Each structure stands twice: as structure tokens, then as C-alpha cells.
């Protein structure tokens, strides 16, 4: 059977149950797709032996009946997840050669459900970046191109490898993580679906930390149904993560009725920003129309503190990162610099961290260190925390007014060319997160789905933001929008 790798999770699940296909066949198909996609640089560590072994076990389990939905599904795993015995280096040189002795909670859950790991996926170093260009493996490449223009485009970041791999059908789905938009922005850039669940839904145990109060894992899939299926397998209370919520996980797929009659969708006026391309604005308007046609009530809402979100985010996230990344010191694991005679512990730290961390990571560690230092703490970190509280309250207020979900663009642009932002002010790059960071600051669930193509033929995404813990409802609204948008375009294979 050809092109099994093009399958979606739901399709594959049904085919596996019917016996039309085996997990091993699916896996082999993905492995050869990966082999042929070196130009995308999406997979950075392949685990074919493990994949085949897991696939065989999954096939046995499926035959025996009663296998979970995710059983036998070949996945790509973002390099930020620690995977036992498999290189896990958060796309950083400082973790070169690091093979964890433990399995992250999320990958454990997926593997327990019978999923197959094809390998580890490229990303921005320590998930810091919006273009995948900060990766120590070199950037992943977007399978989409601007028509016949051969310019290599970014798959977005930080989960760029995941997005590229799913969009190019190298795997059926992938894990991602999202601290400020790292699932939703790359999903939008590559025409796939990505959901960041409510903070506390997915365990952070075994996921390399970037900014602990913002980091959440989520699935990156080919459509909303797949997102519902995979998210359910990733969610759940973990006593090893003190910020994990002890809440029951509903059957998200069963909630996909497509019926959103009577739902109230908010359109935040503050998200009409200067300099946003007309195409994005009109896509947003179309989305609004689609939801209205599906029976939802559309209301204009205000999220007054939106403009402070990005600055607050770029204080809080680096502050936490500067502390979270202190453990990479060359003492116990990962890279340690070669020292000169007479060098002491200070030189070891300095050289190790200078060699091991890339520039963007260094920049954020410096920013974080600065905003936490004596004399600046109140002006930056504490103020940012207050802003965060206000942003959270903005959302609480509109939800209290009866809004069920909020519709916004996912990104301010479509995928840009790799290297195009090289000389830009780093703040320009940070603007990629302008529509997504508020969601992380408020701890809410947010989903990006593809809704159209721009003039250059690149996918554009819309974002829906939901009430806390109501991922099921959010997925259903996204499902209705997906059906109305009818986005089916795929990148033309050039790799």
C-alpha cells in the first residue's frame, strides 16, 4: 500500500482495526518518507529500530482487540521531550550526547497507549525562537513554498520540526510544546492543526523546561479530529508535576458534533493591529462569517491589556528560563568545555555555557538575569506579573459575559523566508507571538487551524481561544470552523 504516511490518525485507527493495514506497514511508510525528506531537516534523531519494535507490539495488541485509539500510530517527538535511551538535547549543543535514563510522562502515556516513535524532531534551541533558526541541528524547512519560488521558508518555531514533519506527511502526528505560541505559530505556517491545552492539562515531567509557568505540551496533527484523539492520550493528572491538574479527561473526539448553534464567539478589538497584512484581516473576517453561518453569535469584545502582553511575556519567560537553564553547567551531563591549565570553576561555567548555548538562548538568559536582579526586580519581573494578572482578568471578564470562545488570527504573517529576519531587531522576531502569548500568560487553551492560503500560496491560520479546561468545547468550535473553511491544500513535494 502506497502513501500510508499520508493517513490521519482517525483513518489509520479505523484501518488498523479493520485489518486493512498494520502498524508496521504504517511505520515503514513513514520511515521511508523520513529517509527521503532529509532536505526538510525535520527529524534529527531517527529511531527506526525502536519504531519497528513498537509497531510490532502494537499490531499484536490491535489483533487482541481493545487497543486504545493511539495504538500503532507512528509519531514524531519534539526533541524537548526526554525519551529514555534516545538522544534528547532540546536542539542545544549544551546537551550534546545526552540520553536520559527516564521517559517523559507524555511520551510514556503515548507509548503505553501503543504509539510508535519514529524519532526526535527539530526545534528552536530550548524552544526559544519562532523560526527554527536557533536550533543546534540547523533549521528545519517548511515543506510549503511561495509558488515556484524556491526560497526556503521557515516552518515557524519553536516546534518547527514537528510542523514540517506533519505537513510533509513524514509522520501521522507529532508532539509539540507551546510557551508563547510554539505549537500554534508553526501549525499556522505549515497548514496543520495545533492545540495548546490549558496550563496544567499535560504533565511537564520530563519535558526540558523553558519557562515553567507557561510551558504546555500539545499535539500537532493533520486535522481537528486527530488533535482531539491525540490530546486525550496526552492529558491527565501527574502527581510528579505539582502544577498538573487533578481533573478527569473527557472523550474529546465524542464532543466533535460540529454543532455550535447558540455559542458566543468574541472578536477582540485589540487584535486589529497596525501593520497586519490585509490578507490576514480578511481571513479573520471570513472566519467570523463562517462561525456566524454555523449558528454562532459573534460579539465584539475588548481585552484591554493585550498590548502589554508581549513585553510582559518577554520579561517572565526569560526570567524563568535564566533560572531553569542554570543547571546546564557542565558539571554532571551534557557538554563541558575543555579547560586551560589554571582554569577554575568560574572558567568552566563561562566557557561551557558560552560554547554550549546559542546566541538567542544567551540573550534570553541575560535578559532574565537582568530582570530578576536586585534593584530591577520590581520594575520588570513584578510589574510583568501584575500585567499577567490583568491579562488573565481580561479573559475572565469576557468569559463571564458569556463568551464561549475567542477568534483571532494565529500569526501576523504567513511563513517568512529562512534568514530573512537575520539582521532584524530580535523584537521583530518576537512579534510573531503577538496573537498567541496572551493565551500562555492566561493559561488558557488555544488552537490554530488552517483556514486559507495567501496570495503567495502559503497557508494562513486562525486561532480559537477557549475557556479554561474546556478543550472539548474549543475543539468542537474549531471542528465547525474547519468544516466551513474546507482547507485541504497540501504542499507540492519538492524535497
Amino acid at each position: 500500500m502506497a502513501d500510508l504516511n499520508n493517513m490521519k490518525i482517525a483513518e489509520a485507527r479505523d484501518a488498523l482495526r479493520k485489518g486493512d493495514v498494520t502498524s508496521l506497514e504504517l511505520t515503514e511508510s513513514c520511515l521511508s518518507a523520513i529517509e527521503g525528506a532529509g532536505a526538510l531537516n525535520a527529524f534529527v534523531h531517527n529511531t527506526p529500530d525502536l519504531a519497528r519494535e513498537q509497531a510490532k507490539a502494537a499490531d499484536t495488541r490491535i489483533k487482541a482487540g481493545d487497543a486504545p485509539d493511539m495504538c500503532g500510530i507512528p509519531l514524531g517527538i519534539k526533541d524537548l521531550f526526554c525519551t529514555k535511551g534516545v538522544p534528547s538535547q532540546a536542539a542545544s549543543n549544551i546537551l550534546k550526547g545526552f540520553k536520559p535514563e527516564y521517559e517523559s510522562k507524555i511520551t510514556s502515556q503515548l507509548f503505553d497507549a501503543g504509539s510508535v516513535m519514529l524519532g526526535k524532531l527539530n526545534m528552536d534551541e530550548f524552544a526559544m525562537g519562532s523560526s527554527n533558526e536557533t536550533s543546534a541541528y540547523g533549521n528545519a524547512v517548511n515543506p510549503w513554498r511561495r509558488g515556484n519560488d524556491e526560497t526556503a521558508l521557515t516552518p515557524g518555531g519553536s516546534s518547527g520540526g514537528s510542523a514540517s514533519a506533519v505537513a510533509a506527511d513524514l509522520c501521522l502526528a507529532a508532539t509539540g510544546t507551546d510557551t508563547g505560541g510554539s505549537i500554534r505559530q508553526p501549525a499556522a505556517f505549515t497548514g496543520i492543526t495545533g492545540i495548546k491545552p490549558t496550563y496544567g492539562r499535560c504533565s511537564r515531567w520530563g519535558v526540558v523546561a523553558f519557562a515553567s509557568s507557561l510551558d504546555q505540551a500539545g499535539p500537532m496533527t493533520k486535522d481537528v479530529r486527530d488533535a482531539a484523539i491525540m490530546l486525550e492520550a496526552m492529558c491527565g493528572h501527574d502527581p510528579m508535576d505539582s502544577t498538573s491538574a487533578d481533573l478527569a479527561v473527557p472523550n474529546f473526539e465524542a464532543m466533535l458534533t460540529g454543532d455550535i448553534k447558540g455559542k458566543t464567539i468574541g472578536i477582540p478589538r485589540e487584535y486589529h493591529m497596525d501593520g497586519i497584512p490585509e490578507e490576514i484581516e480578511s481571513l479573520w473576517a471570513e472566519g467570523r462569517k463562517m462561525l456566524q453561518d454555523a449558528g454562532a453569535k459573534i460579539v465584539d469584545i475588548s481585552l484591554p491589556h493585550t498590548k502589554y502582553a508581549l513585553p510582559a511575556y518577554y520579561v517572565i519567560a526569560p526570567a524563568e528560563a535564566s533560572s531553569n537553564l542554570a543547571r546546564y553547567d557542565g558539571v554532571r551531563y551534557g557538554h563541558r568545555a575543555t579547560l586551560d591549565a589554571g582554569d577554575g570553576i568560574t572558567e568552566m561555567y563561562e566557557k561551557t555555557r558560552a560554547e554550549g548555548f546559542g546566541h538567542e538562548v544567551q540573550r534570553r538568559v541575560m535578559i532574565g538575569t537582568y530582570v530578576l536582579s536586585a534593584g530591577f526586580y520590581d520594575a520588570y519581573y513584578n510589574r510583568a506579573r501584575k500585567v499577567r494578572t490583568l491579562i488573565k482578568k481580561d479573559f475572565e471578564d469576557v468569559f463571564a459575559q458569556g463568551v464561549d470562545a475567542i477568534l483571532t488570527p494565529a500569526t501576523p504573517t504567513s511563513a517568512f523566508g529562512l534568514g530573512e529576519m537575520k539582521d532584524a531587531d530580535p523584537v521583530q522576531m518576537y512579534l510573531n507571538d503577538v496573537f498567541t502569548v496572551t493565551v500562555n500568560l492566561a493559561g488558557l487553551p488555544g488552537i490554530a487551524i488552517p483556514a486559507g492560503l495567501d496570495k503567495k500560496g502559503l497557508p494562513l491560520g486562525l486561532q480559537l481561544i477557549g475557556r479554561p479546561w474546556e478543550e472539548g468545547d474549543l475543539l468542537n468550535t474549531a471542528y465547525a470552523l474547519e468544516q466551513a473553511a474546507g482547507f485541504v491544500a497540501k504542499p507540492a513535494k519538492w524535497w
Partner: protein
Amino acid sequence: MLDLTFDTPTPKTIAGAKYDWELVIGMEVHAQVASKAKLFSGASTKFGAEPNSNVAFVDAAMPGMLPVINEFCVEQAVRTGLGLKAEIHLKSAFDRKNYFYPDLPQGYQISQLYHPIVGEGEVIVDMEPGIARRVRIERIHIEQDAGKSIHDMDPNMSFVDLNRTGVALMEIVSCPDIRGPEEAAAYIAKIRQILRYLGTCDGNMQNGNLRADVNVSICRAGQYEKYMETQDFSHLGTRCEIKNMNSMRFIQQAIDVEARRQIAIVEAGGEVHQETRLYDPDKGETRSMRSKEEAHDYRYFPCPDLLPLEIEQEWVDDIAKTLPELPDEKKARFVGDYGLSEYDASVLTAEVISADFFEKVASTAGDGKLAANWVINELFGRLKKEDHSIEDSPVSPAQLAGIIKLIKSDTISGKIAKDLFEIVYTEGGDPDAIVEARGMKQVTDTGAIEAAVDEIIAANPAQVEKAKANPKLAGWFVGQVMKATGGKANPKAVNQIVAQKLKD
């Protein structure tokens, strides 16, 4: 319950070249929480294990590992707070204290800067009977201990042992209410005693399970009182912090040396700079570790891996119900119920185990004062001679009570009782049976004593004449009678009969 009243001790003064100076001392005591597992990991806290054998992934700060609070350590901190009569905060929170050191794998220590679990409390520091200092506790917070760096195993390399990394500590912070080196040592001793009573810290200073940072400043007479009135620190001198002291003796020496250093500076017209110092016991001096300018900027911020710690009043109340009788109450009760001197009560209540021993002896023997005398003078004295502790006492409370009962019933004399004690101590056995078997009973039969007296009087006519002239010499006859009866004659009876016969 009886509260013992006390007077405040006189602050220690040190004479400088120009003035007399008073000392002002505050302490931060780091007490290792008695718990089998670490504060945020399940790893063991056992002392003396192979290096790096008690280390969980989170202790080694492996990527993606997360801390999970050990509830028992929280319970121990609450118990400690209750024992120090302190306010328990139902909501507290953890912060990260960031600094780089190889024995701190995370690059930060999880501590409680902004919202500690325990607030203000107090400790009564006994100096001598009737004299004590009331020291206010400012706060107690829980935090992780660091590991151990070993620099002397190799000429080129340093080694790190992470066994202690992540072990729970309580930092007990006092107000600057301690007024001299002796008070400082007594303060530590009292904290140690209370923690041991509570079972929240084993108090082993040698292993570093109890150690202190000591803040020392000097001031002129009258300044401290102004501070106490206003709580305004500007009335006090600039303080220096002497780090990481784990010996009572060195704490006292260090305070004295540091105060004298500060006095010399101030009297020479200089200024004391706030800094962290280390005490060098070999040279008998304190040395600057780092000045305020070089001080670490710890960049404290709330630990995003942990939710605020919320506990219920009901849970605190349940812990309060399990609190043992504490040293002050026990001492007061010993004074009140057994009629002991405050000194004896202090000695007996120093450790729970000796207090319990005493109470068993006292209740069985039915005499508190005698029990206290025997426990303190005979038993403790004998144990000390052989460097034994009360735990390994070869004499049980029942045996000691048996000896005391024999004294009380006039069955044996006090002198014979000491012989009996020695037999029980070295050979063991039931005191009653020993007395019976070895014929140690006191002779109270006046006829037998009279006969013995008569015999001695008859044999020593010259002495009789002398004694008649000088009644003080009667003692000689008593001694002779005791000798003749092998010490078993009841001394009271012998005295009476000798006096009677000499008169005749």
C-alpha cells in the same frame, strides 16, 4: 500549669580602649528536618551512605525533572513552629534562590523568602536558675540543603557528593535579642533541646545537622533599649554575619573575637562594613568571605514548579494535639510536682529520655527529691565516669527505685545503698534480693546495738572519760559501733544509744 518566673540576664559588655560596648546577636539556625526522604524527592536522607548513592533525578537536576513537596517535612516544620509557640501560616510559598556552585545542581536553592511557613514565635533561653532571656523568633522557613564539594581528595580535581542535596532544612531566624556569647550558646542549646523533644531534628551538630549563621554587632549602653522600644535598627551597629558554625565553643569564641574586631574599628574612627565572614578557629580570627559589593545577587523569584503551599487549620490542630510536653513546661512541672530545685529540674529535663527515666524512678519509689538526687548524683555521675549515656544505663528505673525504697523503709542505710548501687550497676540483679542474700540490711534491733555499745564502752574506759567531758567525742564511739556492725547498724539508733550510755 506552673510557669517559672525569671529575671533577665545582664548583657555581656566588652571594655574597649575608650568605652564599654554591648553585644547584639541574631542567629539563623539551620536544622536538618528529621525525615527519611528529602524535601522534594523520594531519595533517602541516611547519613554516611556511599557518595552519590542517595540521589534522585530531581536532586541531580536532570533536564525536565520536577520537585514534589514531601508532606512529612511540612508537618515537621509546622510541629517545630508550634513548639516555638509561633504563628503557623496556612499559606506559604516557595522561591528560588539562584547562584552557581557545583554542589547546587539546579543552580538554585528552593527556599521560602517572601512567604515562610512559620511566623513569629519565642524561645526562653535559660542562663541559670531564675535567669533567662526571652528571644523572639522572626520566622522559620523550609528549604533545600546543598550537596558537598570535596576539594582535598585530588590535587587537580574537586569532587561533588549529592547525597545531602535536597535534604530538608528548617531555617530558624531569631530577632537580635541575644546579648552575649554565652547566651548565644545557650540559645542554640535550647533550640536543640526543643527540636529533639519535638523529634523534628536530631540536633547532631557534628554531622552538620544543626548549624548556625551568627549576626554580630556592637552598641553603646542604652542603644539596644532604644531599638527595642522602636524596633528601629538604626540604633544598633552594623552587623557582620559569621557563616556556618557548628560548634557551641567556636560560636562563643567567634562572637567574642568578632565583637572585639568591630570595637577596635569603631574606636579607631572607622566603620564596620556589612559583610559575610568566616571564623578560623586555628588563628582565632574572623575573615571576610565576601563584602556587600561582592555579595551574590540571588535573584529570588517564586518557584514556578510549585504551587503555593496551603495547609488546613484542622491539620495544624491535629499536629498540635500530638505535641509532647516541652522542656519549659516539664521543668516547671518537676519543680511544682516533685518539689525539685530549678537546677535539678533543668538537669533532668535536658533530654526527654533522662526526664522519663527520672519520672519512672520517682513514681515507683514514691519520692521525687530522693529520685532526683540518685538519678543526678549517683547514676549520671557513674555513667559519666564511663562515658556512657542514659540510653545504655545498666541500671533500670525499676532497679534504682528499688534501692531508693530500701532507703526510705530504713532497710538499708545511705552508705550501704551506695554499695548496693554499685553492685546493681556492675552485676545487675534485684536490689531486694541482693540485700537479703548479702545480709546488707540495717540493724535496727536496739538490743543488739546496745550490746555492741556496751562492749565498746567497757573496752575503752579512758575514751569514755574524755567523751563525758567533751560530748563532741561521742562520734568516735558511733564510728566504732558502725565498724563493729559492718556498717549495718541504723546510724540514728547508734547515735541515740551512745549518747544515752555516755550520760549514764
